[in-house]
């Protein structure tokens, strides 16, 4: 019988419910699911455990992995090939090309996508905006203008948590807006030094400096959900955060469009953060069968719909009906399709989709150092270039 020990880091109530769907389906198909959840640090802890398990020759059957890490693990020669499942289920056709690209290792399929989180969201408190006569900004200048207005009105313009990954999230949204999708790709996917050292990049840092002025003084170390709560309470107006923030709003009983607004951050493009499962080489027919079944179910329409309804993200498959989804999700899905065709569907560097950990980390180091000091944009750009070079 199919068996799977699944290492993942979805442990909060909403997430657990979402994965439970998969487990149920898996069980319905005769499989035995052993749950091995390890939360923490955006999957860092899970990756730690994974490494120990792999080295001890006791790898889990399926692991929640994402981004270039999939390819890195593949290079270590420990990933199983699930091309047969992918081909049988025609994944190529139903997945956006750039997302499918993440699932392939040297031409073979080595992972199965679960969902797409959009990262470049800006959330707003509807009544605060209304009270101050502000529209959702569509350019960074508009955003700055709105922010100044809010500040004058005694409202914190931007709710932000001073943790490196949150800094990076804001940064990449700003970068996408200012550099444009191509510039973003060159800078954060190809690590093109010219782009990195360009004046536009300096403009990005300048905007970050401006944004720093819109954040209250006590932001250091604040959890993202506390920032979200500030928006909910009307203490702050905006927050730039991935679509998981929606879950906090919903959990507090707020309705999208009425109590809070969602929009993509100023500028074109779509930054995605795709969760996926990779299968590890294991012994035993049961486990291999489990891997295949799991892969099939993960990309199956049913799971993609139910899971993402719960999780607040959107299905990776483009052919899932979105009737049941809320307006933010619908917006996200249509943007994804549009940007996929326009070539502006881009991996989020801040969430480990674009670069190897060391490189992404090097960039984040610079971003957070700049954001938390009075470093000039010139210095920041030089530091960024050095850090990237040093991380190779």
């Amino acid at each position, binding site marked *: 019988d199919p068996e799977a*020990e699944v290492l993942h*880091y979805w442990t909060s*109530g*909403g997430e657990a419910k979402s994965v439970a769907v998969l487990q149920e389906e898996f069980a319905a198909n005769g499989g035995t699911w052993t749950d091995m959840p390890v939360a923490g640090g955006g999957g860092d802890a899970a990756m*730690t455990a994974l490494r*120990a398990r792999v080295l*001890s020759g006791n790898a889990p059957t399926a692991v929640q992995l994402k981004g270039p890490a999939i390819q890195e693990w593949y290079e270590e020669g420990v990933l199983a090939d699930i091309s047969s499942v992918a081909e049988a289920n025609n994944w190529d056709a139903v997945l956006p090309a750039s997302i499918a690209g993440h699932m392939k290792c040297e031409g073979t399929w080595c992972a199965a996508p679960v969902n797409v989180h959009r990262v470049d969201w800006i959330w707003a408190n509807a009544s605060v905006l209304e009270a101050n006569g502000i529209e959702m900004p569509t350019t960074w200048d508009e955003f700055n203008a709105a922010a100044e207005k809010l500040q004058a009105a005694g409202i914190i313009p931007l709710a932000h948590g001073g943790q490196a990954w949150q800094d990076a999230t804001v940064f990449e949204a700003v970068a996408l807006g200012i550099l444009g999708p191509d510039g973003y790709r060159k800078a954060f996917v190809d690590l093109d030094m010219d782009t990195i050292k360009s004046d536009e990049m300096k403009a990005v840092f300048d905007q970050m400096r401006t944004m720093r002025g819109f954040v209250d003084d006590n932001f250091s170390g604040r959890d993202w*959900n506390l920032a979200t*709560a500030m928006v909910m309470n009307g203490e702050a107006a905006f927050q730039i955060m991935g679509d998981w923030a929606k879950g906090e709003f919903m959990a507090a009983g707020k309705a999208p469009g009425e109590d809070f607004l969602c929009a993509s951050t100023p500028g074109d493009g779509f930054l995605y953060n795709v969760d996926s499962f990779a299968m590890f080489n294991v012994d035993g027919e049961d486990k291999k069968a489990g891997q295949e079944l799991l892969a099939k179910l993960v990309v199956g329409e049913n799971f993609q719909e139910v899971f993402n309804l719960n999780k607040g993200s959107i299905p990776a498959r483009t052919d899932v009906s979105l009737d049941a989804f809320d307006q933010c999700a619908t917006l996200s899905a249509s943007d994804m399709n549009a940007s996929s065709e326009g070539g502006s569907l881009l991996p989020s560097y801040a969430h480990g989709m674009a670069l190897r950990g060391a490189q992404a980390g090097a960039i984040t180091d610079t971003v957070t150092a700049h954001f938390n000091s009075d470093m000039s944009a010139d210095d920041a750009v030089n530091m960024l270039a050095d850090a990237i070079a040093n991380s190779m």
Partner: protein
Amino acid sequence: MADISTPAPRSGTGARIALRWTLYLLLCLFALFYLMPLFVMITTSIKSLDEIRTGDLIALPREVTFDAWRTAWSGACTGIQCEGVRPFFWNSVLIAIPAVAISTLIGALNGYVVAQWRFRGANLFFSLMLFGCFIPFQVVLLPMARVLGIMGIAGTIPGLIFVHVIYGLGFTTLFFRNYYVTIPAELTRAAKVDGAGFFRIFWSIFLPLSLPIIVVTVIWQFTQIWNDFLFGVSFSQAGTQPVTVALNNIVNSTTGVKEYNVDMAAAIIAALPTLLVYVVAGKYFVRGLTAGSVKG
């Protein structure tokens, strides 16, 4: 008995009473400092999530509810199971008790040898052992995983016990050695003349003398092992995960809704066994065990 403040006055002088009051005041002030975070944790754990979201985080609860405690104990999700920290307790107990016992015993023996049966190289051994206390656990994670794999105890509770014993030895040896060097060598001598051998002396003379340091060692080891996350997460597999991993899973989801009240309750619950150890073991902080042994 031989506290500095003898003789205990039956009816002390004014200055003495004032001193005493200052002392208690000071101790209570320190206690307040230590209790501050606990206060925050407890108040948070008995607030509703709504109140946390909308209210002042460190204010007293407007409305007291123990739902979070219930959830933390038996309802919080730690993965697809939502059974709270309860199912993981037993794993932690199975790991912590043998690991503490074994490492304390070996540490006591090691300390006894190094302190009382000095031989050439004993100090070198001790230094090597001590330095071992400083090895960053992050460093040992991967090679240890390999070794556990080779030994065939990867992912098992014995494997975890093994790891905890190995990396606890440095400390247990340190504590015991440093306690035993202060015990007069004449005791060992007398026992040797009485015909007692190595183990007999240890068992009959030294162990009974060691209560305070056993308490310290047990407190340290139990805390370290019970609260260990890194080894627990790396060297366990589904079914052998200790309570810290569960706690971590409850607390540390990045993209889920944060339930601070449950987090706090879970953390306090997870700490209860350790607290119990502190209270129980604390009774053995007795004085004067060496009294009357030798003329100095």
